[in-house]
């Protein structure tokens, strides 16, 4: 199209302007919507509760926290991700997540000082998981647990970091 418009073609010009603009807006929005839908994070479904065996009750009775590793399977996109988590079993079949509520490192049981210590930022927790000192804002998180057929089972969950209250991560 030339720049000098002959008089009387204003309508045709505005139509010609409208058409590609509409189509390009259509292209951008349709591809944009498709891109948004495609990139939207895929949330693992939390509806089905997945109880995992921790161990046999008879083995777990001890004064000291017992470190156990449990594996969970989560549907994550095209893969089922099998992940290992550490938990501490306390007297009375309480199960603590080893994940430090500060930044999510895994705490270790320190026999000599009789407390849990976090290797990352030096948060310390009492044998029952209560917060002692350090940057963590709450004690270690207790996981839902139950006893079935003589086995201790736990429902593994993760919680928000750095909150004073325990908030389940979703």
């Amino acid at each position, binding site marked *: *199209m030339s*720049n000098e418009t002959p008089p009387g073609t204003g309508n045709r*010009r505005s139509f*010609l*302007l409208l*058409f*590609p*603009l509409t*189509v*390009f807006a259509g*292209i951008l929005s*349709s*591809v944009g*919507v*498709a*891109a948004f*839908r*495609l*990139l*939207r994070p895929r949330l693992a479904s939390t509806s089905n509760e997945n109880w*995992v*065996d921790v*161990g*046999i009750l008879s*083995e777990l009775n001890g004064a000291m926290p017992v470190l156990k*590793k449990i*594996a*969970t*399977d989560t*549907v*994550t*996109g*095209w*893969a*089922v*991700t*099998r*992940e*290992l988590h550490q938990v501490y079993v306390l007297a009375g079949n309480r199960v603590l997540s080893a994940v430090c509520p500060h930044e999510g490192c895994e705490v270790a049981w320190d026999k000599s000082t009789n407390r849990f210590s976090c290797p990352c930022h030096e948060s310390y927790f009492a044998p029952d998981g209560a917060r002692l000192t350090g940057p963590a804002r709450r004690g270690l998180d207790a996981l839902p647990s139950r006893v079935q057929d003589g*086995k201790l089972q736990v429902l593994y969950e993760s919680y928000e970091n750095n909150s004073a209250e325990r908030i389940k991560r979703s």
Partner: protein
Amino acid sequence: MTASQSDVQPKRSTGRVMSWFQASGAVVLMLICVQLVTGSLLAFYYVPSVDHAHTTVSFIEKVVSSGSWIRSLHHYGSQWLPFFVFLHLVRLRLCEAYKCHRVQWLTAVILLALVMAAGATGYSLPWDARAFFSTRVAEGLMAGLPLVGHNARLWLLGGNEISTLTLSRFFALHVLVIPFLILVVVALRLISQTQRVALINHSTIAAAVVFLALAIWTVRFHAPLGPAVADVNADYLPRPGAQFLWLYESLKHLPGGLGSIVGVVVPSLVVFVLLLLPWFGVGFLKHFSQHRQGLIATVILASLAVWVVTMTATSYLSDRRNPRTRQQLLKQQAEEQQFRARPFEATVLNLGGAAAQTQPGAPPAYIRFCANCHGAHGEGGRQGALKFPPLIGVGSKLRRTVDDVVGLLNDPTAYGLEPPMRSFATKLTDQEKRDIAQWVVGLK
């Protein structure tokens, strides 16, 4: 018709058809943008590894929202792109761009080579049967090159054989190297644009119409995804994408060994001559081709067009006419449809060494008494001179049902086992024995 017009007016034809023809550049630009956007989106899910490529592509196809459409856009866009780049070259030939707009001419020729290379490397990525065979053919074409064939094959494959390294190479070329070169070429071309671009002209309208057509086409037709390489039968008939049917058909009619010449050497020469064309009018080259630039370009472009159209039509017709081929292709199509309809199956991935630990479901009693010797997964092991057999697959052996394994735990010698395997009759409860037996027999 248009050719004779523009020969008379070499600068810029103002004819109606010609002005639509000039829109080819905008269409090419639009298609390149579509390829870049859809390609980036696909890369968010794709994994270039032989054990995950097909899984991730099926995930994009079956599960990801809009994934199927985005992949179809990318697939068919890659087939439309060479066609419009070629049209663009023809248009540049008609206005004799190699004389007055050298950058336009050179970038268009390079672009044609690059989009073909992008198509060739992209075809391997889904790692379905089709991809595997196209990789085989690329391997063969490289290996058949004179002088450099041996090394060209090794460099293409990244080793002696087609492997996951090959797929990584194709991936790197397809998503990093070639798109980067395409961007450079497109940038050069756009910088050289002196003419002010109006917001509306034939170009934008043509680009919009072609996108609409592509969008409708891709909603109607899915990008093909064949069975995984591992599931291919011997009677599988691979067919390349539309932009490579000419090569596929040519290879059928050429004596073996000439394929590399037609598939690699001749195209390279064609690109080389087209690139040199602007300089055929100057210097010493002038002596033998003073007024023949136009003729050379016409001959090359016309023979390319005739060859590609003839070969593509021949391959299409021969597939339709041969009843057995036709039947097999229809069967493959039906199988593909079935595969598409089946729900997606996820792969298991171990995060943080979970594999080395217990499998979920391994009974605690197994971990306590058996895992030390037979491994946490039942994979077997050795301690010094002692070897402990793997338990995986034990269920398919004779006398190894669940009841047999319970009996075996009570009295190993009765089942032909020797120390250090000992009896667990008193160490385990009956329930524990049964748990272990059930788990072990189920190991695969």
